[in-house]
């Protein structure tokens, strides 16, 4: 048996050894965040309550990613069954359990942006703020994965919201991604941004600086073009060309992909240079779009969105010494949106299990193609106003209908029309509806001051009675 002094020494040693334990734990805690459940401070209560105990225990005892993976397989099934309401909480739980599963953030945000639709395949835009939150959270949890930045920049801000400044902001962040891994060297050229991500080539086994010049590099060039920063876009295409050429030598395993990327970059650079030279001349005299837009209620909650617009394109130009006239131009699209008059959509929403979607809000957005100077689009909102959880509940007393044309949006304005009215509408005007506020309807944020985008916008206000009334009636 130990004597008393040895025993005291033993007890003292136990107490003293707890000091390094507390110290080590405080060193481990910040590093451990990279390996574990995400955002526990914000969502622990709601997720903890909703997650069945066997899942919680499984997650806590080493099967976290397996559970998340199985739930994700189940979620995919929900999507194919059209059970959209079940998807949102599943995405929440899965990303909480496995915050490094980038696929879930990407696909989940894509569902939120595009795939919750009405009977006529128009997406439910009330989910957009959730999509922003989900992707931003994904980026925070995976700061070195450029895929998520590019998704937020392109799929979300560029395509869905036409918010080109935000798109550029996120592409720039993707370009500035740093790999802080002691096993991999840091950037040789940190100022250019695009040379900071390294991959080991499958053939040469050598590390190669890489930031996906196609997904990130090309995307940034397109966003700069849409924002009207043509010199920036030209520089970016030049940079992409040099990157593709370099990678074709340094990374033989992706040479075919880079060869294709190189051809696209060269084509786009040449086109941009040519357009830069000629559009200045073609857009000198602003063309009057002369937008006329109206709404026809054909039955309660059923409408025809109609109007006329003068899209002439590069109507008159000299070709091989002859004057050629071309127009009116088909292919432009007029966007329209019907929403509660007093509702301001938030930029982002907290994404926990009890998602508070604005279920009482009505918000519909679509577009109509202009053909022979006229557009018409039938919209049936009646079918989605029924049931317990309708997409168009029509609870408000007043509604705002906005028609607009966005010359910077490649989906709304084809290149032959842009040749006449310019990248951001610098060659167009409208005696009644020119809008230089820089606010693109539905973009959540704005104005986009740097891009100087000029829109043509018309707004009509309706009452609930106007919406619900019977018989055909025109509003303008």
């Amino acid at each position: 048996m130990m004597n008393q002094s040895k025993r005291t020494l033993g007890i003292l040693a136990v107490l003293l050894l707890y000091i390094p334990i507390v110290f080590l734990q405080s060193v481990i805690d910040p590093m451990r965040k990279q390996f574990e459940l995400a955002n526990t401070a914000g969502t622990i209560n709601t997720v903890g309550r909703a997650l069945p105990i066997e899942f919680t225990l499984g997650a806590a005892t080493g099967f976290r990613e397996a559970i998340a993976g199985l739930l994700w397989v189940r979620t995919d099934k929900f999507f194919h069954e059209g059970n959209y309401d079940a998807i949102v909480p599943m995405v929440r739980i899965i990303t909480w359990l496995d915050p490094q599963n980038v696929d879930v953030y990407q696909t989940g945000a894509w569902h939120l942006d595009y795939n919750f639709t009405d009977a006529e395949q128009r997406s439910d835009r009330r989910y957009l703020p959730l999509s922003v939150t989900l992707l931003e959270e994904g980026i925070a949890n995976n700061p070195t994965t450029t895929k998520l930045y590019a998704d937020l920049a392109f799929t979300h801000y560029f395509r869905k919201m036409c918010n080109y400044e935000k798109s550029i902001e996120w592409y720039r962040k993707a370009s500035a991604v740093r790999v802080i891994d002691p096993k991999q060297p840091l950037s040789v050229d940190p100022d250019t941004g695009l040379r900071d991500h390294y991959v080991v080539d499958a053939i040469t086994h050598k590390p190669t600086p890489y930031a996906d010049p196609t997904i990130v590099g090309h995307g940034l060039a397109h966003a700069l073009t849409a924002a009207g920063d043509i010199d920036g876009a030209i520089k970016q295409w030049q940079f992409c060309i040099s990157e593709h050429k370099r990678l074709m030598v340094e990374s033989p395993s992706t040479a075919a992909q880079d060869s294709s990327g190189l051809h696209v970059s060269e084509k786009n650079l040449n086109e941009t240079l040519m357009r830069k030279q000629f559009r200045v001349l073609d857009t000198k005299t602003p063309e009057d779009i002369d937008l006329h837009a109206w709404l026809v209620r054909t039955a309660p909650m059923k409408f025809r969105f109609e109007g006329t617009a003068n899209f002439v394109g590069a109507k008159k130009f000299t070709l091989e010494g002859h004057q050629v006239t071309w127009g009116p131009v088909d292919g432009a699209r007029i966007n329209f949106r019907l929403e509660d008059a007093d509702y301001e959509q938030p930029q982002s929403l907290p994404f926990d299990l009890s998602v508070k979607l604005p279920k009482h809000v009505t918000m519909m957005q679509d577009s109509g193609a202009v053909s022979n100077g006229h557009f018409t689009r039938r919209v049936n909102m009646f079918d989605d106003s029924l049931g317990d959880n309708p997409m168009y509940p029509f609870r408000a007393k007043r509604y705002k209908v906005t028609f607009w044309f966005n010359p910077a949006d490649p989906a709304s304005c084809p290149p032959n029309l842009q040749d006449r009215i310019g990248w951001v509408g610098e060659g167009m005007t409208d005696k009644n509806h020119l809008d230089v506020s820089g606010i693109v309807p539905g973009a959540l944020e704005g104005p986009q001051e740097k891009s100087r985008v000029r829109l043509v916008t018309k707004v009509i206000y309706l009452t609930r009675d106007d919406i619900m009334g019977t018989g055909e009636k025109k509003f303008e």
Partner: protein
Amino acid sequence: MSTILTLASGTFGEAMRRKILNVFLFVAIAMIVLFFAFASFSVTSDMIITMSTGLGIISLAGVFISVILGINLIPNEIEKRTIYTILSKPVKRHEFLIGKFLGGLATVFVNIFLMGALFVIGVALFKDPHHHIRLDILEGVLMIFFQMMLVNALAVMFSVFTSPFVNFFLTFAIYILGSMSAITESLGQASANGKRSAGVQIIFKAVHFLVPNFANFNVQNPIIHPEVVIQSMSKYMATNILYAIIYSTIMLLIAILVFDRREV
């Protein structure tokens, strides 16, 4: 030292005679099923679930081996009265305890690394399209071993003053609590709505720092998602190994102090 090593080798040999490696057989069967179970899922999901479940099975099997070995190491000797023979020799009580612990640890080591090697080979043969040997899996296996070292030390510590039955539940309860580091840490901080009282925060902070944090050792995530870049992985692993060694030392010191006064 030689006394400790002799005791450790005896304990290891006894564990092997008790066919503890049969656990390995069951795990091997589970893994073979695992390699073919998720093939109908997408390639990404299949790999994620296989890797996570495989490492999870190794971890779970490791916990059972560690707990069952740990809780019986000392009581078995007392029950069979072999402890009298040993302690009547020039063997000190602390040498006996450390020897038994190291013997148990060696058994856990052999089991976990056999399971790990089987998993690495299985992944290369059945899952990796290029049949590459994924040595990074062994990083996860190494961390599971140190996690089990802590579980073993905890079980040995409890075994000197509780019955195996009570010890089983006590060790498991602490294992589960310590596996929820993220939750205890979160509860030890102020809540977003300010509703969590200071008292509750202090309690959870104490729990977080004083209860062994088994979740520290779960490094499966970057192995499952190789594209994820982890900052200072080697520093993280080294810190955790140091944590496991110091914490196990504390557990053994407590065990020695209690066992020293215990009448056997």
